[in-house]
């Protein structure tokens, strides 16, 4: 496959929410194409539906209408197991609020992404390998001294880096980031941005949602979500 081939595309995505008899038409026909190794930023005001779109792209939610294609194939939104697999192998999520499991250590949180797709025996056979990769990733994020710590002992920036390491563990072709710097101060946010740049330089495809144009400027391409459509 060529370097410029399409990794992800969406066609005519619609999303309705029903609230108290009222129909909220949040996404009104979103079309989108993301190329391999591309870094795309989606900007939009609060409530415009950015997170909703990202959830649809990542198979975390189902569109009311429309299709998502990944690596040339349509993402089967009907089969739960297919979606679970898609989320596990093909995409990595990074959230504004990190979403680390408080009971697990840094290292365990990262390894979790591999754990969820293996049984006990399968896990035992790959454990050492996964642990090594997780350690390596965390080192890369500058967290080698934090492996055994729990999330509540880490700063926001550190937590976000753990979350990124977790998203990358299974080497997903696509990284989805929902306001990854939204909860961080400018300096720390800058560090995270640098990290994303580094990953992007290494060939990682990234779709990032933000409402901060300054952050979005770091991406290759910016799209604005407005009135349910991308401009």
């Amino acid at each position, binding site marked *: 496959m060529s370097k410029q081939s399409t990794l992800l595309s969406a066609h005519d995505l619609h999303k309705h929410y029903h609230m108290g008899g009222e129909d909220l038409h949040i996404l009104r026909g979103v079309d989108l194409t993301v190329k391999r190794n591309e870094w795309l930023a989606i900007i939009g005001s609060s409530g415009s539906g950015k997170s909703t779109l990202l959830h649809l792209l990542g198979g975390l939610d189902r569109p009311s209408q429309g299709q998502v294609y990944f690596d040339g194939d349509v993402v089967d939104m009907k089969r739960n197991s297919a979606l*679970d697999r898609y989320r596990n192998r093909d995409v990595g999520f990074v959230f504004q609020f990190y979403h680390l499991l408080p009971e697990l250590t840094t290292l365990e949180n990262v390894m979790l992404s591999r754990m969820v797709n293996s049984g006990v025996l399968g896990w035992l056979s790959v454990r050492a390998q996964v642990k090594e990769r997780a350690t390596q990733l965390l080192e890369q994020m500058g967290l080698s001294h934090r492996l055994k710590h729990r999330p509540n002992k880490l700063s926001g920036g550190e937590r976000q880096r753990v979350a990124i390491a977790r*998203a990358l563990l299974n080497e997903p072709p696509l990284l989805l980031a929902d306001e990854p710097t939204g909860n961080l101060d400018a300096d720390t946010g800058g560090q995270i941005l640098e990290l994303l740049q580094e990953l992007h330089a290494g060939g990682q495809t990234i779709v990032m949602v933000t409402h901060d144009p300054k952050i979005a400027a770091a991406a290759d391409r910016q799209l604005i979500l407005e009135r349910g459509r991308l401009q």
Partner: protein
Amino acid sequence: MYKLLLIGKYLRRKLAPMFAALAVMLCTAMVMIVISVMGGFLTMMRASAQTLTGQITVYSDLTGFEGYKKLSELLLEHPDIEAATPLIRSYGLIKLHDVTKTVEVIGIEPATFTQVTGYRESLYWSKDDYLQMLDKMSPPLDERTPEIQKGIDRWKKSYDQMDLVEAGMTFQIPKPWSVGAIEYGCVMGIEVNPWNVRTDTGRYGIQNAGLGLPITLTVLPLAQSGSLQTLSPSVRKFAVVNEFKSGLYDVDANRVCVPFAVLQEMLDMHPKQVWETFDPQTGEPAGDPTIMPARISELMIQGRDGVALDQLKDDVQTIVNAFIASHRQQSPLWVQTWEERHATLLGAVEKEKGLLTVLFAIISVVAIVMIAVIFYMIVQDKTRDIGTLRAIGASRSGVASIFLGYGLAIGIVGSALGFALAASIVLNLNEIQDILFKLFGFKMWDPSVYYFERIPSQLDPKEVTIILLASVFSSLVGSVVPAWRASRQDPVEALRYE
């Protein structure tokens, strides 16, 4: 794999699972203790019921049946039958001191009776009781004058000669007692004597025991036809040579054992010659007398070890049927096992045990609900984690199985702890009671109220296993709804959840 990891982590981290496990533990322990104590009670009742009842009884009505010697021989020929003893059962009045009461009187041959029943073991008093009483009554050593010491020594000697168990086994009145011209001893149930009272150890005090007491026994002999044969009741005096305690209050409060031959004669059931013609001049009997054979009311039978009760009953029944056929037996004969004889009593306790178990099992539903509530809270608490897990690719069933596994783990931990708690309480029930008594002067099991000295209990491996499985299962059931909810949790909602 992450499921096991998370189950482990969740178990260690939070207070909630400890409460859940605690609930399981308490319910498990509660049901186990109830079953154990009731089971122990039942076992003890069964043992007591068996104490003075042979495995199988062949009996007729109050008028008795003839030919028992022959029947007994026939029975003993059977390889599975070890011993048989004849018994006469009647009702009468006794007078001790100035108290008159109705009693059940049985005439026994102690030597064979004890082969068939636990008679010897049920005899309550021994020489030691007397010696102990003497020790208690004697003044302390430093207050003893040579005179007093001499008296004590004399008493001790006379007690030493006296074997009360032996007296109970032979109805011989021990030497040191002087009870006038009374020839025979009798053995009363321990509760027949109204002065017998239990001390707070649950033992009877020997000071008030009826030992050596002369009693007057009155019985009414019956004709073989069942009518009152003579209007003159038969009266004799006996001396109490020992008392027995079978463990069944009704028996111990109402029964008096006297020598077989004596009661047989008193009831006119002994073998005798009867003349039908009389010399008209002298009024003396004339011609050949008819022999009236001896009668008894019951034959008690003990089978060999390991012979099934029902089998034994069938065998006895066969022999009895043959006996009836060949002896033109008049009154009907019934064959009953000891269990059948005490069916009303044992059945009641058995039902009670079943009822209590069911009641406590129902209470244990509370544990299931508690687990469900606690788990619901845990799921609520973990909503964001569930969203995260789903986001990184965990399946619905995977998330559900975390909480099911969690329920299972809590069930296992809780019921294991419950078992430990129940076992330590049940096995030390009486010690615990003693400690409570010392600390607070409170007795759960007052031996002067209850008829057994110690709280009975037994841990039955089968019942324990069932309870353990049931409580693990209940915990699992309790976690089903929360687990289902967790699996239905919309990941997007869950991630949004603050």
